[in-house]
């Protein structure tokens, strides 16, 4: 049991692999096959390459505002990997790696950042909620979804993602409190990437860790090295197992760092030093796993190049599809808000269509 050995008030951080890719806690090494490890690695690379391409497209003026995930790939892929088909994922907005791990198509995620609502349409067989921009309010949805699972006797767990800034919001407390009171099967996954846009973690809370907040709501909490994919997987897996056994919610603090900007509209040089960023770049979660896989003879430099190249191509193809999608069809602005359009909406659409007709644009 990992949680018993890493009580949040002890301020010890759970790690399985050190920064050089050595397994330092073999007893906690998750029971996953080499194939699964390679799949996890590929998902991290896919996330990284998709980010790099999106940033490039954005700078070329072809993509709208984009929120890069660079540096947080292990926290995302490692935490989403133990999900089963029937489980729910309730993301915030910087969860590309988690989305891809769960099976969402990159095209959809790109489509959202491209400005098309269809990027938020999740296929019927995927239990993922779309991007939620307001901070922390989606945590209540996760608590509610998990509560519904419990009330209906469904064998499913929910994971929800948020940042360190979200822990300052009332909704964080209401959702944690709610989940604790009703003992619902949910995992709260805080990606503590040290900044909420420009405001550092120290201005969000004066508690020494975010993980320790769990104690106030009567649930276990654990501080995990968010750049260690094996530690992330192991901790989340244990939290899921607890939830499936009916033992209630868990809070996991993934200690990580956002290497990039908050979004492409933000300039992180204004609020953090190059030295700090360089220090964290040395803890890159992808490099770490790569070192491990190579040391185990699971990955070669040549294969690595191939994986990166393939991931880049997938991102290019996805963006080609997105760019070809064009603008939102007029009716689509109106028709999804209610099951049936209200008389007011019907009238507004008709009036606007008549206007377009008159201008020869319809």
């Amino acid at each position, binding site marked *: 049991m990992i949680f018993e050995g890493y009580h949040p008030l002890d301020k010890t951080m759970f790690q399985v692999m050190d920064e050089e890719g050595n397994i330092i806690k073999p007893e906690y090494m998750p029971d996953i096959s080499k194939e699964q490890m390679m799949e996890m690695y590929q998902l991290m690379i896919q996330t990284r390459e998709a980010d790099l391409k999106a940033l490039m497209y954005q700078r070329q003026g072809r993509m709208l505002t984009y929120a890069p995930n660079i540096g947080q790939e292990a926290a995302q892929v490692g935490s989403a990997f133990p999900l089963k088909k029937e489980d729910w994922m309730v993301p915030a907005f910087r969860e590309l790696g988690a989305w891809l791990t769960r099976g969402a198509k990159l095209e959809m995620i790109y489509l959202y950042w491209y400005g098309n609502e269809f990027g938020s349409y999740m296929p019927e067989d995927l239990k993922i909620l*779309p991007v939620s921009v307001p901070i922390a309010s989606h945590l*209540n949805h996760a608590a509610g*979804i998990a509560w519904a699972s419990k009330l209906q006797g469904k064998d499913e767990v929910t994971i929800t993602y948020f940042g360190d800034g979200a822990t300052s919001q009332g909704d964080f407390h209401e959702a944690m409190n709610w989940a604790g009171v009703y003992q619902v099967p949910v995992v709260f996954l805080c990606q503590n990437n040290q900044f909420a846009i420009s405001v550092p973690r120290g201005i969000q809370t004066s508690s020494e860790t975010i993980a320790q907040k769990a104690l106030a709501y009567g649930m276990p909490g654990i501080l995990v090295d968010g750049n260690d994919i094996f530690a992330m997987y192991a901790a989340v897996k244990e939290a899921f197992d607890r939830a499936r056994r009916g033992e209630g919610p868990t809070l996991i603090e993934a200690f990580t760092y956002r290497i990039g900007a908050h979004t492409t509209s933000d300039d992180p040089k204004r609020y953090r030093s190059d030295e700090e960023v360089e220090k964290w770049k040395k803890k890159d979660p992808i490099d770490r796993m790569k070192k491990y896989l190579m040391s185990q003879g699971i990955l070669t430099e040549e294969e690595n190049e191939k994986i990166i190249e393939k991931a880049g191509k997938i991102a290019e193809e996805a963006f080609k599809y997105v760019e070809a999608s064009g603008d939102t069809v007029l009716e689509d602005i109106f028709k999804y808000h*209610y099951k049936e359009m209200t*008389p*007011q909406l019907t009238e507004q659409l008709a009036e606007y269509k008549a206007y377009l007709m008159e201008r020869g644009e319809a």
Partner: protein
Amino acid sequence: MAVINLLQAVNQTLKQEMKRDKRVIVFGEDVGLEGGVFRATVDLQKEFGPDRCMDSPLSESGIVGAGIGLAINGLIPVVEMQFMGFSYPAFNQIISHMARMRNRSRGRYTVPMVIRMPYGGGIRALEHHSESTEALYAHIPGLKVVIPSTPYDAKGLLAAAIRDEDPVIFLEPKRIYRAFKQEVPDEEYILPIGKANIVKEGGDVTLISWGAMMRETLKAAELANEKGIHAEVIDLRTVAPIDQETVIESVKKTGRVVIVHEATKTLGIGAELISIINEKAFLYLEAPPARVTGFDMPFPLPRGEQHYIPSPDRILRKIEAVSNYLT
């Protein structure tokens, strides 16, 4: 057919809907064991158990937020805000998520959920217990805002709200929760959301109101009748979306209109109604449309509330002014 008050009608409907569909669950502050501070949910926990009717933490954003999650994952939550004035901590959940989830997800996720809120003043209550801010919710695309004015309407409209596949804000006029009784059929029935009710026909002036104010409005219509002015009285029943057709037809017939609401005057539902009338029946108007409303002030504490709620006499004065305009 039983003779019951509005509160009993709400309770009866909740029971019938919970019996009809086991996905319907009820929760909120004090709604379980106690049956709600007004007793609207009394006996539900006893009858359906603590997994269908539960006391929640004191957590408005949590109540609505969890409701959204429950609705997404297969249930039909009917939640209670203890007072409308306490719904503001849940405002973000209501506006940013409940009202938008269907649209955001292009129909993949829907929120078939009802938020019940006792609203309005006149019960000699504390600060924040007398709000009538229906316009705040009516302004938000994606919400339907329904307000019954009688036990009969409460039953049919609440059943419709629970069966609606979109989120509904259901405002209960607490001033008339127990003020009068009415014969209400025992069996289930539905009154369609978005349809106004012509409570009284007349050809001289159209009076439009809803909820608790229907009582004062109908009294004013009687007083006007004694003076030979025959008012047509419309109970809007749904303030979003507004039944434009019924309103316009009536104004075309009478040429004169007085709108009565307890809510603040500026940017209230009355302002929207007058805009609709101006857009669609301007040439039929014989007098400028008029409003009798609360003031642009918070609802006063009990020692001042008698000034705030439009009285039948205040309404009558306006009816007379509109009727005598240029005649």
